[in-house]
């Protein structure tokens, strides 16, 4: 838990107005504190004020406590203490981390503003180029990138007891987003706080062939005799 900031009263008074209570003892009784010849009984000026952002400059934090190296490292284990919103249910996966707007960088913290359920930040998203149908041979509809949600562990599908239809607790099932480039898709996933992985496409390899090569001399045994 971060320490509470210093009481506001210390910051409201300007430095010149703060009472300077320097205890004047006999000259012979100099203490270690007198060495620097400045007021140690008065709190030092804070390095930042209320007009600064929560972490405005990289080396200089308005909060008393800076994030330690362990806290800045990416988390690979589920975080059970994360704040829940009203949409959490018994099918919601546990997120690794939930974006709260304090991440450094210029990207918009859309995860904080969009009002989307925080459990979406727990689910992994696949970014891929959908393959062309095997029965078709053109390249149209094969250049865009798609974002697809992985299947929930528990609630993705069950049989409805009344009619036997397939019911689901997964609101992202069957949803996909299309992007023009891979970087667009990655930026979107970063902005929304989704965990993602990119699946590189299998490119078509067109081998140039020449009919004359069937009749070239080969020192080895021919696999297939093309001429009678």
């Amino acid at each position, binding site marked *: 838990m971060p320490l509470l900031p210093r009481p506001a009263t210390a910051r409201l008074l300007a430095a010149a107005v703060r009472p300077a209570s320097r205890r004047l003892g006999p000259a012979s009784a100099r203490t270690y504190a007198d060495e620097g010849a400045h007021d140690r009984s008065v709190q030092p000026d804070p390095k930042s004020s209320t*007009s600064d952002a929560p972490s405005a400059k990289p080396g200089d934090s308005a909060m008393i406590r800076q994030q330690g190296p362990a806290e800045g490292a990416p988390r690979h284990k589920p975080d*059970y*203490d994360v704040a*829940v919103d*009203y949409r959490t249910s*018994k099918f919601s996966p*546990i997120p690794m981390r939930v974006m*709260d707007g304090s991440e450094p960088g210029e990207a918009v*913290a859309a995860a904080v*503003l969009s009002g989307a359920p925080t459990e979406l930040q727990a689910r992994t998203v696949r970014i891929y180029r959908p393959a062309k149908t095997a029965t078709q041979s053109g390249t149209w509809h094969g250049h865009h990138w798609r974002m697809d949600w992985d299947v929930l562990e528990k609630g993705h599908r069950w049989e409805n007891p009344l009619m036997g239809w397939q019911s689901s607790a997964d609101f992202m099932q069957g949803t996909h987003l299309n992007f023009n480039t891979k970087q667009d898709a990655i930026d979107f996933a970063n902005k929304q706080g989704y965990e993602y992985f990119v699946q590189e496409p299998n490119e078509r390899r067109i081998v140039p062939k020449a009919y004359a090569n069937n009749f070239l001399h080969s020192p080895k045994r021919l696999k297939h005799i093309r001429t009678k």
Partner: protein
Amino acid sequence: MINPTYLAQKTRTSVNWADARRRVIKSYRDWLRAAPEIQQMYSLNMPVSAIRTKARQEFERHRYVAQLPTVDVLITKSNEEYQETINYWKQLTHVLKYFRAEDDPKARLPHNFVAGFLEGRN
């Protein structure tokens, strides 16, 4: 002459962090001041302090936001929610959405792996 609806705020951006801080605190104080009225209006079965704690919790959720435009949008959303609540445009379900974590045991995350496993959340 079009009169704006009661409690409508004009859209504006914060000039700097001190301005944003003032607007956030003003919005927070409005919520605290309105807590008894919300309890009476929606006939909530909880003390006024619970409503104030919930307001505090929602504001604390976004305490460490680092970007000013994000803070602006959050202030706007707070003002919108405030207007909708005080003008009685919401219904009881909309207000109780904020209190689901306390009321409903299914709306909570387990506190460790074993608890989740025993619930059946593998």
